[in-house]
């Protein structure tokens, strides 16, 4: 039953959940986020109305995805953009390689793109002999560590300044420093050189505006703007679900993304790109390529029950509030998209049976659905994934156990008859094996005490009460 993915997840989750230093670091950071997020939400005249409006607009986009994608592509092409369509990750990687080869690319600068992580772009480019430099500070840091991003918005959230200082000292030869500003300036100096010399810039995108044929990129650092300004060739990779119908819709999505994702009223730079350098413009890439990626999104689209997951604007709010994420961290998920959204879509994108454990590792508390700015019914989708997984491939012993419980649960008199044995066993025998290898409920008792069976059950107390009342 346990796949290697689920075994690794359980082991990693257990290790990180018990790491008190990690717990304090991550939860401390996220508590600060909650404070600023709440003040941004309160500034909205109608946050719930905004969620409705955002959900409606994204639903419209998804429900008419074919039309909007065609509009998007044709508007871009009218301005000289080359639009490519990639069915799978390997298709997308090949498109990149073809462009890079044709352009004789020597130096590549890249800004943050979760879709690029999804298709393992950097590895493919490096294998083909290209060197790719991540320009987003957090991504740059995890790239130096040969790690994947820890969080979809804050890639290096799991590291302390001391760890980053040692990293820079080791890889860049810089002097160790405890000061985050100094550390940032070290990275800034290294990367400025790359901006000016890179011949190819690769970006992701947060939104794809159908009406005007533009990709919209949100960031705080300015590295994506530089990636889109200076290199001669610009390539943007994005999932097909990023569509929003109208340019004016961004007036809603940009502040909601900033509020939910980072607790900011608006992110530092929100930039829309509609083509390569146009006649009369003094800079910008000579060639602009946009790669539209499917890679399983049409499969999600086909599941009418879970189609709303394609509304996701990748803000990270669900990660921030998820108690599972807050205790196991982003890496334990073992896949590109972590947190609740990752737990919902990964079984669809990468295989239900291999990844159902992510949908199972949840208490279904619903904090994610509550936080989602586009009202995706995340926690109910986790339930649906579980149902689908067990319907197609039930776990034999588990199904049997639930059948047995079902048989017993409708025979309360039998349960009543068994209660004294339960009490006896708990009082006289359980203490011997409690918490150890032979304890049948070790999964509980390893860390927690069990409640005692009450001397009289509610049913017994109820009957006694009724008898006393009748006697009166």
């Amino acid at each position: 039953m346990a796949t290697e993915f689920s075994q690794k997840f359980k082991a990693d989750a257990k290790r990180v959940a018990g790491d008190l230093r990690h717990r304090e670091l991550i939860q401390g950071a996220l508590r600060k986020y909650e404070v600023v997020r709440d003040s941004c939400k309160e500034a909205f005249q109608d946050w719930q109305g905004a969620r409705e409006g955002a959900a409606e607009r994204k639903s419209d986009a998804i429900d008419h995805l074919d039309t909007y994608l065609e509009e998007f592509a044709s508007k871009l092409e009218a301005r000289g953009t080359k639009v490519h369509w990639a069915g799978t990750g390997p298709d997308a990687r090949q498109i990149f390689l073809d462009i890079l080869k044709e352009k004789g690319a020597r130096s590549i600068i890249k800004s943050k793109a979760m879709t690029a992580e999804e298709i393992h772009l950097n590895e493919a480019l490096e294998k083909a002999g290209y060197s790719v430099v991540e320009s987003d500070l957090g991504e740059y840091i995890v790239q130096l560590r040969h790690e994947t991003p820890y969080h979809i918005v804050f890639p290096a959230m799991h590291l302390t300044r001391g760890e980053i200082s040692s990293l820079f000292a080791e890889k860049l030869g810089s002097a160790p420093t405890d000061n985050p500003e100094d550390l940032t300036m070290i990275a800034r100096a290294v990367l400025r050189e790359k901006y000016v010399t890179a011949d190819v810039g690769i970006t992701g995108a947060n939104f794809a505006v159908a009406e005007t044929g533009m990709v919209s990129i949100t960031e705080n650092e300015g590295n994506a703007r530089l990636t889109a300004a200076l290199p001669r060739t610009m390539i943007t990779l994005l999932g097909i679900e990023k569509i929003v119908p109208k340019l004016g819709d961004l007036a809603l999505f940009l502040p909601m993304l900033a509020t939910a994702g980072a607790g900011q009223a608006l992110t530092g730079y929100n930039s829309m790109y509609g083509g390569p350098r146009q006649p009369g413009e003094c800079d910008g890439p000579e060639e602009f390529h946009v790669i539209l990626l499917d890679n399983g999104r049409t499969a999600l689209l086909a599941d009418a029950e879970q189609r709303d997951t394609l509304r996701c604007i990748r803000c990270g709010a669900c990660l921030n509030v998820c108690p599972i994420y807050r205790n196991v961290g982003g890496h334990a998920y073992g896949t590109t998209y972590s947190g609740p959204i990752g737990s919902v879509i990964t079984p669809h994108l990468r295989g239900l049976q291999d990844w159902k454990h992510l949908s199972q590792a949840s208490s279904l508390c619903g904090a994610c659905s509550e936080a989602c700015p586009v009202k995706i019914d995340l926690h109910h989708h986790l339930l649906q994934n579980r149902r689908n997984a067990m319907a197609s491939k039930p776990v034999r012993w588990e199904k049997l156990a639930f059948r047995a419980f079902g048989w017993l649960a409708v025979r309360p008199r039998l349960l009543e008859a068994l209660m004294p044995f339960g009490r006896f066993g708990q009082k006289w025998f359980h203490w011997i094996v409690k918490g150890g290898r032979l304890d049948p409920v070790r999964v509980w008792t390893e860390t927690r005490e069990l409640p005692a069976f009450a001397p009289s059950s509610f049913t017994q107390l109820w009957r006694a009460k009724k008898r006393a009342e009748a006697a009166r």
Partner: protein
Amino acid sequence: MNAEKQKILRRIREALGVHTVHTVHKVHPQGDIASWLPKVGPAFEAWAELFAKNSVQLKTSFHLVESEAAAARLLAETARAEGWQRLAAHGNGPARAIVTTLGLPSLWTDGGYDARELERCDAGITECDALVAQTGSVLVTSKSAGGRALSVLPPHHVVLARREQLVADLPAAFALLERKYRDAYPSFIGFITGPSRTGDIERILVLGAHGPKKLTIVCW
């Protein structure tokens, strides 16, 4: 490429359960967005106050002055205080007029420029399309602000704006873009909200990650 496009579109149509191409889209009233977003006052005074308040919070240096001449004087003081040696700017409007008065070696991005030379400039001075009170943002495009890099590469970005350019909120800003550029959008449109920043190290705010460490807005 086209074959892949058709395959993807076909998968989408099958997934949505339709076999014909949609031609009608649901039209959303745009007016409601403004009613959900944070409240903004009714006119210039309220907008200027809100923009100023936001600027303080964002660590943007915002100055409302009486005239273009006053703006030029302010820039001259800044140039002295910061020890500017080389500037970059654009166009044939107020930016060129004011920067010329400063008498410093200047790079003009119109018509093209060398990226290394731009990188060596102490400040990039641009005009803009609008200032947005609701968020404290500057709206620029590659047409109004001398290209894509001028407003982001030099370590100090100075924006020259007119009072009439101050708008209430984001919906108003997008409406302005549509009116101004509808049939010929510039290839780059940008909302700039404060200097460059990062929270990637322990979520501690640091300014000047890659883009400008300083943002100054002079409005008359």
